[in-house]
């Protein structure tokens, strides 16, 4: 018998699922080239879902539903709310682009976006290995299809193929690791697994063996070195609107899964997974930043920069438990959460500007295409500059506080080696500053190739301006979002 509380906890998922099907059917009757009606219905659904999530999150309750299969807690609800907003913003930015490129001949863009969002929801609230795995699959399968949405564009198809093959491999890793841990602990439920590990009676070898595969699978999804090879190709190859879709909101879900699996499911193995994350973080910071220097394609450059930013997120994740004491855990994980949220916000705006400059038959994804943007449109050049300075971690942009939060968690967590790692991280972000500045240079110092003014629909202009302003505003007043993340993580750790 399903109790009512369980149902309430998954109302947003249910709405999303039902509406995704409704939108798919409704779209059959839509004739317009830009699919305005479908778009509006999708946006309305997402707005309702986001509002519902926000209200759940602010109620501050933790509900385990369906005998512990899923959990609705503050962290999860906020992440779901942000993911929904990110998908909405992606759709606003991406629709004109998609319409120009025959991607709106059917309503798949909207339906698949909603399904991928549903996948994220399941990932975020899953409290059971199989539920999480199902969420991952739902997200990635929708994403493969989204990447291949421009089906007569060779690059996109190539990217979709790569994404699919590597993604399937990663899912295999994840599943294999999960089955190992299931074999060792006898449960798929994260709470039970955590309890079983904490008894100390389980054979460490099997557990760590399984853990390696779980971490490798997560690293694939996160896109950190050495499991990063798909990121640059997919970012570059996918239509920009889709790049935004897979580079934005899913990072929030990947973060949640990492928290669920590692922090909630295997806190007893923290020593082991923290070491793995540290190596992944070091490699990501180095490879991401160094490889980004060599890129001439802006999307590819941002892909490598993503890799380095995920390295920073991992730094927060590996700073929680010191000598078996989890005293700094709240500080560390909430720093990572703040980092992910601010990173997604910045990514949305930067890809938004790329999308805005793309016209029919012109992609505007080479760095050189941004030449003299300041003369063509000071506003958009300004927004892009805010994004780039934020990604480079220069105050007073929000990206700086994200780095500050993660670095202080790292320094707080330990001795000389962690300070050494902090110095390494800031040196890598110095290298990062170089390639971000190069884009600023192209926009501000170079002469424009074309004098044509930048035109954009009103909604895109409004949302993009708001998005850019938020980067600065959250930099001037970062307290609210920081507190939100801190409370969310505190609740998660307490339950």
């Amino acid at each position: 018998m399903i109790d009512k509380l369980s149902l309430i906890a998954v109302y947003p998922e249910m709405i999303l699922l039902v509406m995704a099907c409704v939108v798919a059917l409704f779209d059959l009757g839509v004739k317009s080239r830009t699919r305005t009606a479908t778009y509006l219905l999708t946006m309305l659904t997402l707005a309702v879902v986001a509002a519902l999530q926000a209200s759940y999150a602010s109620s501050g309750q933790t509900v385990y539903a369906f005998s512990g299969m899923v959990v609705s807690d503050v962290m999860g609800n906020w992440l779901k709310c942000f993911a929904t907003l990110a998908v909405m913003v992606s759709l606003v930015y991406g629709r004109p682009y998609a319409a120009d490129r025959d991607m709106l001949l059917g309503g798949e863009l909207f339906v698949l976006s909603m399904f991928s969002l549903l996948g994220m929801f399941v990932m975020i609230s899953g409290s059971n290995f199989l539920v999480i795995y199902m969420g991952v699959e739902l997200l990635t399968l929708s994403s493969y299809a989204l990447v291949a949405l421009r089906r007569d564009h060779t690059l996109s198809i190539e990217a979709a193929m790569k994404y699919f093959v590597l993604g399937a491999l990663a899912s295999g890793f994840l599943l294999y690791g999960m089955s190992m841990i299931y074999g060792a602990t006898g449960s798929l439920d994260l709470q039970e697994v955590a309890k079983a590990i904490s008894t100390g009676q389980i054979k460490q070898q099997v557990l760590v063996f399984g853990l390696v595969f779980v971490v490798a699978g997560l690293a694939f999804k996160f896109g950190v070195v050495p499991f990063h090879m798909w990121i640059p190709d997919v970012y570059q190859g996918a239509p920009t609107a889709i790049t935004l879709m897979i580079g934005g909101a899913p990072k929030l879900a990947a973060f949640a899964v990492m928290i669920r699996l590692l922090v909630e499911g295997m806190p007893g193995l923290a020593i082991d997974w923290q070491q793995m994350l540290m190596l992944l973080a070091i490699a990501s910071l180095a490879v991401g930043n160094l490889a980004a220097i060599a890129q001439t394609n802006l999307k590819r450059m941002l892909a490598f920069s993503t890799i380095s930013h995920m390295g920073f997120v991992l730094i927060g994740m590996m700073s929680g438990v010191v000598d078996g004491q989890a005293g700094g855990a709240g500080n560390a994980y909430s720093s990572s959460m703040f980092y992910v949220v601010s990173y997604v916000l910045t990514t949305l705006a930067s890809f938004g500007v790329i999308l805005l400059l793309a016209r029919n038959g012109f992609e505007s994804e080479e760095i050189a295409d941004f030449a003299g943007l300041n003369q063509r449109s000071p506003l958009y050049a300004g927004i892009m500059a805010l994004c780039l300075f934020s990604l480079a971690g220069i105050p007073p942009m929000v990206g700086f506080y994200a780095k500050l939060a993660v670095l202080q968690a790292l320094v707080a967590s330990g001795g000389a080696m962690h300070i050494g790692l902090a110095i390494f991280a800031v040196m890598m972000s110095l290298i990062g500053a170089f390639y971000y500045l190069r884009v600023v240079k192209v926009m501000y110092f170079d002469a424009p190739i074309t004098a044509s003014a930048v035109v954009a629909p009103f909604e895109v202009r409004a949302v993009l301006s708001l998005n850019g302003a938020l980067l600065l505003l959250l930099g001037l007043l970062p307290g609210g979002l920081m507190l939100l993340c801190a409370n969310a993580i505190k609740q998660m750790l307490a339950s």
Partner: protein
Amino acid sequence: MGLLSLAIWTPIAFGVVLLALGRDDQARAVRWVALIGAVVSLLVTLPLYTQFNVTTAAMQFVENTPWFERFNVNYHLGIDGISVWFILLTAFINLIVVIAGWEVITSRVNQYMGAFLILSGLMIGVFCALDGMLFYVFFEATLIPMYLIIGVWGGPNKIYAAFKFFLYTLLGSLLMLIALIYLYIVSGYSFDLLTWQKLPINSHAQTLLFFAFLAAFAVKVPMWPVHTWLPDVHVEAPTGGSAVLAAIMLKLGAYGFLRFSLPITPDASHEWAGLMVGLSLAAVIYVGLVTMVQTDMKKLVAYSSIAHMGFVTLGFFLFNDLGLAGGIVQMISHGFVSAAMFLGIGVLYDRMHSREIASYGGVINTMPKFAVFAMLFAMANCGLPGTAGFVGEWMVILGAVKVNFWVGTAAASALIFGAAYTLWMVKRVYLGPVANDHVKHLKDINAREFFFLTLLAIAVLYLGLYPKPFTDVMDVSVAELLKHVAQSKLN
């Protein structure tokens, strides 16, 4: 809103308005708004001096409200006798730069003026911040407008210069960021500067912190041997950018020594004072010699800036009142003099589009009014008694002799080099017969140029002839700082 907040946010607000104000077809309106903004920004800083209480070393005009509580960061502002003059100096130089760029800048005027106004607000923020994180945010944020100023309105090799400026200074400050985070953790989660200054720290940690701060501030000052970015940047930056860079931005580094290195790590400062004095003397003597062989006027003034800033750091690490006060006076006087020198070169450059000394000769014949100003500033640059340049250098030399006769002697030799390179440049550029047709057709300065050069000349002479208002304000604070630095913080 407190007076300090007003001083910080007035120029920034005007700057933002200017950025929003639109394009070059409204350049006239933009210039006037910028001028009004600069004047208002200067006026709101004046009460800081008139209402300043010189009898106390405590922080004044304090504002303290939580900024973000998650990391216990406060919007904590306050000034003492050390910082008050820099706020006025910043607002003053900002006004001069706006006037100096009036007709010269014709493309993207609103962004140019906006960048300078925002920059000046941020720099005032650095001088008022009493919270480590707030300081860092202002300190770093200044890079953005300066980077754009150099890159957009700079000379032929501007891109190289802009990148070198940004990355070089970012390198230093990122190390300082780690030091700030470390202090935050060992102080029990506080970013408060005044708390940090009372915090006992062991010798090993002090040494590491000292060098982390040194990385940030030495690059900014810049001290020898991390000075190489400065000449490149000065040569390429627009006149206004050079003036602000030399007059204020370099002082941010020197000011950092006073607020961080000396009071937070006094034992390490004493331990490494020999190194600091050595590096300062290298700047004074070696860079002084390098200055002599420069053929580019801007590069010459840039190198002479490094030599002058060597006096500042030398004074700080002598640990006596003459040296410390002398260093601060030298910072203020160098602020006026270097700005004047760069703006003077700008006046010539606007007419001839050349910075090479060899393209000039006998300018006094065609620009007599301008030559008088140029001479005066040159005299101040080589430290002639009666001008601003003299007071600080003389105090530092006296302070040095007190500590060690030979250090004093070595420092004093710089006066000779200073006179040599400055006077030699004056001779080659201004004196003698008219060198070529270009010089022959030079027009003397107009009313606008006359006006801002006069303002600077008054400042230079006033500080030189009657430095008492400057030193009176800082006396108590300097004594307090020395007392603080003399106490060991080892636990």
